[in-house]
C-alpha cells in the first residue's frame, strides 16, 4: 500500500484578519500581523498609529480584523498602548493583551521617544514594529530604518541614503526590557513562537519584524517570501531574541552566510548600485553580523 503523505499544520488555522483588505499585493506587513495574531489570539487590543496598517485595516466604518483596534496618532503607539493597558487594569481586565503595531517610521523615528519611555517604565505591552524600511504610507520616503544605498523618493538615485540603518534592536536591548526579538515574515513558525512568548511575559516586549514591501522596494510581489528568507540567510537581518537585555539567542542559525548580491538584485531600490557600492554594503553587513555573533556567544 502506498504511504499517504501527511502535512502538518505548523500554525493555527484561525485567522484574525480577513482577506480582501487594502494591502498591496505581496505586502509583508499584512503577513506579519496575520501571523502575530495567530499567536496572540482574539483577546488582543491593537494600537495602530499612522502607517500602512492604518489604511490596510479598511476605512471607517469597516475593519478587516476581528480584534479591536484603536487608531492613534503617529508618534503615540507606545504611549497609547500604555494608556489602554492602564485603563484595562483599572476596570478589572488583567487578561487582554495590548499591542502597539507600528511601522518603522513610527518606531525608529517619530515614536522613538514614547517607545523609550514605555520601555524604561517597563509597561506591560507588546510593541511590534513591522519594518518595511521606509515611510511607505506617504509614498516611500526614507526613514532611519532605510538601509544605506537604498533609493527612496527623498533619497534619489543621484544621492541615495548614505547612512546605515539605525540599530533599533541594540537601542531596545539597552533598555533592559524582558524580551526582544527580531523576526521575518518568511519564517512564520519562528515569528509565531516569539509572539507567543511575548504574550506570556510581563513588562515591555519588543518585536522587530522584517516585512518586504514590493511597492516601495520595486520588487515583485511573488518575491516577498523569497526576500524574507534571503535577508536572514545573508546576515542582513539575523533572527534572534534578547532576554533581559543580556541573553542573546540566535533562533535561526545560518550555516553558510550568502553574499548580499542576489538579494539586492531582486529590488529596484538598489538597482543603481555599482559593484563598489555593493562591496561597501557587504562590508557593512559583515561587520555588523560579526559583532552580533559575538553577542550570541553570551560571554
Amino acid at each position, binding site marked *: 500500500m502506498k504511504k499517504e503523505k501527511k502535512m502538518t499544520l505548523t500554525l493555527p488555522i484561525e485567522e484574525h484578519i480577513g482577506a480582501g483588505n487594502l494591502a498591496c499585493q505581496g505586502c509583508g506587513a499584512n503577513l506579519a500581523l496575520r501571523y502575530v495574531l495567530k499567536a496572540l489570539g482574539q483577546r488582543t487590543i491593537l494600537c495602530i498609529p499612522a502607517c500602512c496598517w492604518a489604511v490596510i485595516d479598511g476605512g471607517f466604518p469597516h475593519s478587516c480584523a476581528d480584534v479591536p483596534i484603536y487608531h492613534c496618532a503617529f508618534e*503615540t503607539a507606545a504611549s497609547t498602548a500604555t*494608556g489602554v493597558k*492602564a*485603563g484595562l*487594569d483599572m476596570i478589572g481586565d488583567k487578561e487582554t493583551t495590548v499591542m502597539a503595531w507600528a511601522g518603522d517610521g513610527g518606531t525608529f523615528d517619530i515614536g522613538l521617544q*514614547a517607545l523609550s519611555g514605555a520601555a524604561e*517604565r517597563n509597561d506591560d505591552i507588546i510593541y511590534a514594529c513591522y519594518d518595511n524600511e521606509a515611510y511607505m504610507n506617504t509614498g516611500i520616503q526614507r526613514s532611519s530604518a532605510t538601509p544605506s544605498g537604498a533609493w527612496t523618493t527623498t533619497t534619489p538615485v543621484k544621492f541615495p541614503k548614505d547612512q546605515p540603518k539605525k540599530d533599533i534592536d541594540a537601542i531596545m536591548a539597552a533598555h533592559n526590557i524582558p524580551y526582544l526579538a527580531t523576526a521575518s515574515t518568511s519564517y512564520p513558525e519562528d515569528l509565531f513562537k516569539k509572539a507567543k512568548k511575548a504574550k506570556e511575559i510581563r513588562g515591555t516586549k519588543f518585536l522587530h519584524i522584517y516585512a518586504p514591501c514590493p511597492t516601495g522596494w520595486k520588487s515583485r510581489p511573488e518575491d516577498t517570501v523569497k526576500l524574507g528568507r534571503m535577508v536572514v540567510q545573508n546576515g542582513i537581518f539575523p533572527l534572534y531574541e534578547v532576554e533581559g537585555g543580556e541573553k542573546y539567542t540566535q533562533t535561526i542559525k545560518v550555516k553558510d552566510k550568502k553574499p548580499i548580491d542576489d538579494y539586492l538584485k531582486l529590488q529596484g531600490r538598489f538597482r543603481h548600485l555599482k559593484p563598489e557600492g555593493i562591496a561597501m554594503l557587504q562590508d557593512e553587513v559583515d561587520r555588523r553580523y560579526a559583532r552580533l555573533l559575538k553577542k550570541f556567544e553570551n560571554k
Partner: protein
Amino acid sequence: MKKVIMGNHALSYGAMLARTQVIAAYPITPQTQVVELLSEMCADGTLNAKFIKVESEHSAMAACIGASIAGARTFTATSSQGLALMHEMLHWAAGGRLPIVMGNINRAMAPGWTIWTDQNDSLSQRDTGWLQFYCSSNQEVLDTVLQAYKISETISIPSMVVLDAFALSHTYEVVDIPDQALVDEYLPKFKPYATVTPDDPRAFDGLTGPEHYMELRYKLQKDMEKVPALFEETGRQYEKIFGRRLSAVEPYLCDDAEIVLVTSGTAGYTARVAVEEMRKKGLKVGNLRIKMFRPFPFEDCRRILAKTPKIAVLDRNISYGHHGIFSQELKSALYGTGNQAVFAFIAGLGGRDITADSFREMIETVSRTDRPTEDILWIGVKR
C-alpha cells in the same frame, strides 16, 4: 471638611474625589504641585489610580486617550509649553469624543522663557474642541473639576479647567473639601459610551473619508451647543448637594450698569474692587466674569449686556494681528444685537500685575469717549 490649600492642590483634590482611575502627567512649573500631590495620593492608597509617569506631555495626553477609550476615568494637568506640545493630542481627544479632564495653569508662552501668567497657552487651543472653564478661586477649581467630569461624561467632550499661574495656582485659600459619599452621589462611576474591547471588537478613529468626516464634526458642534444648558443643569444639581452654585458667567451689578468690565480668571476679583469704589462715587459700573469660554456663552452675554452702553473687555492674551481673544468673541456674540460700544483692553501679559488701578484706568478711558479710539487699548505697556 474645610482646608487651607493652594489652587494646584484644589485640582488634585478634585481629581481624587472624582475617583480618577488613570493619571498620566509630566511636570512643568507652575503645575508641579498638582501631580506631586496626586502621586502621593496614589502611593499611599488615598486614591486607587494608576499614575503613568510619562516622558512628555504629548505622551501624557496619548496615554489618557488610551486609558479613556479602555473605559477608565482619566486626568492630567499641564501648562504653557506642555499644553502646546499636547496640541495634536487635544484634537485627538476631542475628535475621539473622550471625556478626559485636564487642569491647565495659565502660563505665558516662550520665548523668552517665562513662568508667569497669561492666557495665550489655553486660548491657542480654543479650536481643538475642548470645553474650557476659567476659574477665579480655589473652591471654584475643585468644584469645577467635579462638574467638568459630569458634563464631559454626559456629552463625550473633554474639559480643561484653567487657573492663573501663581495668582491662583500658588495662592492658599480656604476650600470646602466635600464628603466622598456626596461626590459619589453627584458623580457616579464612569459609564463610557463605547470602549475598545475584545468582547465587541471595533476599530476606532480610523481612516474617515469625506462621506463621513463632516457628520462627525457636525455632531461635535451640535453637542457643544448643548453644553450651556447642561452646565446650568449640572450646576443646579451641584448646588442641591453641595450648596454652591456654579455658573458659566458671573454678573456682578450689571443690571443697571453703564459700563461693564468683562473679565476672566482671577482678574474678576480685582475688577470688583474697582466696581465697588466707582459705585460709591455714583458711577454705574458692573463686572461680568466669563467662566466658560468654550462653548462661548452667547446667550448669557447677549442677555446680560443687552442694554449696556459701554463694555470694557480685559484680555490677558492676544491673537497677534487681531485683538484680545475675549473681546473678539464677545463682539461676535453681540454682533447685530444692539448698539453697545466694546472697548478692547489688553493688560497683564507675561504676568505683569493687573491691579485695581488698571481697572480705574480702563473706566476713565471708557468714560472719556463714546466709542473706542483705538482697536486695542493697552494698559500698563511701556511704549
